[in-house]
C-alpha cells in the first residue's frame, strides 16, 4: 500500500487545522500555585508524602503488626484451655500446690526448742 500517494488532502487538512484551543491563563496560575505550595513543604515531609513512601510505610506497619501478633501467640503460657477435662485441670492444680509446699523453707531449729522442752 502506498501511503505517500494519498498523503496530502488539502481540504481535510484545512478543516482539521481550523479547530483549536488556546492556552488557559487560569491553568498556569493553578500550576504556579501548586509549585509554590510544594516549595513550602519541608523536604523530608515532601518525601514522606510521596505515594511510594506512603505505600512503603503502610506495608511496613502491616508487616510489623503481623510479626508482633505471631510472636505474642507463640510465647503464650499454658492456660485452662490446654487441659482436656476438668479432672486434668484439678490434678494439675493439686500437683502445683504440692510442689509449692515441698519447696517451702523448713522451720528454723530454735523455734522447736522454744516450743516446750523446758529448762
Amino acid at each position: 500500500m502506498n501511503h505517500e500517494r494519498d498523503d496530502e488532502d488539502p481540504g481535510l487538512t484545512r478543516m482539521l487545522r481550523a479547530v483549536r484551543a488556546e492556552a488557559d491563563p487560569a491553568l498556569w496560575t493553578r500550576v504556579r500555585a501548586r509549585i509554590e505550595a510544594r516549595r513550602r513543604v519541608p523536604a523530608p515531609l515532601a518525601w514522606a508524602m510521596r505515594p511510594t513512601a506512603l505505600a512503603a510505610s503502610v506495608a511496613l506497619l502491616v508487616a510489623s503488626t503481623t510479626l508482633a501478633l505471631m510472636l505474642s501467640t507463640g510465647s503464650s503460657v499454658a492456660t485452662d484451655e490446654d487441659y482436656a477435662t476438668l479432672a486434668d485441670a484439678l490434678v494439675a492444680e493439686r500437683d502445683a500446690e504440692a510442689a509449692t509446699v515441698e519447696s517451702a523453707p523448713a522451720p528454723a531449729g530454735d523455734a522447736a526448742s522454744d516450743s516446750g522442752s523446758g529448762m
Partner: protein
Amino acid sequence: MFESSGFARNAPVVQAAAADGGLGGAARGTSRHPIRPSFERGGAGLGIPNEAELIARLRARDLGALGELYRELGGRMTTLARTMLRDADEAADVVEDTLLRVRDAAPGFRGERGLTTWVMRIVANRCRDLLRRRKFTAGRPEDFDPLAESGLRAEPIEGWDLAIDQERMMAMLERAIDALPPEQREAVVLRDRLGLSYDEVAETLGVKVAAVKSRLFRARTALRAALRPPGGE
C-alpha cells in the same frame, strides 16, 4: 492577560546564555547528547524560539521558563488533550500534570528529542492512560457535541463553499475523529491539526515514520468516508 501571570512575551533572557551564543555550559548537554533544537532536526517550523536557552532555564527549574513553555506550547497541548479526551476538565488536568512533570523531569532532559516532541509525548501518554481507564465507563449520549464538550473552537475557513454548512461539516468531522482508534486519532491530530512533521509525530508517539504514515493513511481514509455525502463517491 498573560503578562500578569508570568507569561510576558519578552521575558528576560539568561544573560550568560545569550553571551554564550545562546547556551550556557549546562545547556549544551553532554558531548554524547548535544541539545539540538527541533528546527535543526527537520521540524515543521513549529520549534520554540531560543529552545536551547529555554531548556537550560527549565533544567535550572526556572519557573518563568515553565510559563514561557506553556505560552509557546499551551495551545497545542490543550488542543491535543481536548481532541483526544473530549472533556475540557480532564484535558486541563492532563496539561497541568504535564507541566508539573516537565518541571520535575527537566533536569534530566537531555534534549535528544526536541522540547516540543518531549512535552507532547507526555500529554499523549497521559491521554492514553485516561482513555484506557475510560473503557469501563458509560458511552457518550446521542446528542454529544464533540466541539462544545471539549471546549475546542472552530474558526471560519477561508474560501469555504458557502453552499455547505461548515458548522455541520465540522461536527461530522469531529465525530469521525472520535470514532478513530486512539493511535490513529493522535497521529491525525499531531500531524494534520497541529502541523508537526512526520519525524516529530514519530518521535512524539515513539514509533517509526512508516507507522505514522500508515496510521495517517487509515485515519484520513476513514475521515473522508465519514464526510462523503450519502450515496456519493
